């Protein structure tokens, strides 16, 4: 990968460059493998995968039932599996209960269905407050829920990875999966937003 700014390196960039060079010269690292990993998570694996899972759960009650009982298998059957999605659980929003996912201890996140986590998901402000003041946090995302609603916060402390299945928006009766997929955002599958409303 070309680098054009050798005279103004960020200290961390210099440190990364040094480590990559050392490991590459020893023969321990294939720099092209690093490129392949970056390409995977920038261009191939992202929240569109999870949106397809949610859309199918909305459109197909049998699939929704399989997703509820064995999310790992149901999601793998759609072709989404692997690193950081080895053990999946789907949690379903209802009119009474809203689900929110966090990892207070690091940044655990279901990569095969959502890609890599956004910066705020990994930041101390979110990790510290999502378990203690989720209503405040949701308000910062523009989502205010009534006090009568239960909020379930899932702290990803083990190797289970959580996917929120948001409520299907009203006015989408009869929509096909492809159209439904466009309503499912990354944040809706973390739990910091609702699914989009039909335009």
């Amino acid at each position, binding site marked *: *990968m070309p680098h054009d700014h050798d005279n103004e390196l*960020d200290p961390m*960039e*210099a*440190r*990364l*460059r*040094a*480590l*990559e*060079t050392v*490991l590459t*010269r*020893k*023969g*321990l*690292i294939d720099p092209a*493998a*690093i*490129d392949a*990993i*970056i390409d*995977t*998570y920038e261009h191939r694996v992202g929240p569109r995968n999870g949106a397809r899972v949610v859309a199918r759960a909305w459109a197909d009650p049998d699939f929704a039932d399989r997703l509820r009982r064995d999310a790992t298998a149901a999601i793998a059957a759609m072709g989404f599996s*692997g*690193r950081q999605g*080895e*053990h999946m659980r789907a949690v379903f929003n209802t009119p009474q209960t809203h689900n929110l996912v966090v990892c*207070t*201890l*690091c940044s655990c996140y279901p990569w095969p269905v959502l*890609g*890599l986590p*956004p*910066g*705020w998901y*990994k*930041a*101390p*402000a*979110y*990790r*510290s407050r999502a*378990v*203690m*003041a989720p*209503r405040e946090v949701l308000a*910062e995302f523009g989502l205010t829920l009534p*006090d*009568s609603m239960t*909020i*379930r*916060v*899932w*702290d*990803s*402390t*083990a*190797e*289970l990875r959580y996917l929120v299945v948001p409520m299907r928006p009203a006015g989408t009766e009869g929509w096909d999966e492809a159209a439904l997929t466009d309503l499912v955002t990354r944040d809706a599958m973390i739990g910091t937003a609702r699914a989009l409303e039909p335009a």
Partner: protein
Amino acid sequence: MNGPQDLGGQMGFGPVDPRANDAALHEDWERRVLGLVLCAGAMGLWSIDASRHARESLHPAIYYNASYFEIWLRGLEALLLHHGVVTRAELEAGTAVRGDAAPALHAADVPAALARGGPCDRPVAPAARFAPGDRVRARIMHPRGHTRLPRYVRGHVGTVEAAHGGFVLPDSHAHGQGEAPEHLYTVVFDGAALWGPDAEPGLQICVDAWESYLEPA
């Protein structure tokens, strides 16, 4: 360990700004840290639990000042130094004598390796001690080593909601002391049980906890 990573319930970090910090990968060097961490992990010298422990073992002042991928980079350096893969002199020089080792992960093998992942469920011989519906207390414990029981639940009583079978125990695996699989449970705590009378209404917190983290309540 009660390290800087254990953030649940800490205060003072300010509001979440979803728009200002939305991208998964910000800088080119952050992209390469991600790739480098995965490639180095493929050497098989340490587990994902050891990786997490290396990051949480950073000095709190460094941890809280660092961007997320800086934490990853510093954790990786610590692991490589600990395992003798690199020397401090090599890191400072930014170069090394050319070696003839074979990379553990070639570009062509990346898709298969990522698709394979690293499942952590394991058979476990003893019967599960707890069942859904049981009331359990998260143990009061402060291990010096790695653990995945957050401080904010320790000593508090919750209800087992699900039993997941056996999983590799991070507290052992992070230190190269074997997988020592134990039953894993989802335990649900009421907000008021954790945060007292000022807890937000209608709050439940679900934590995945290994059997040795729990005792009957």
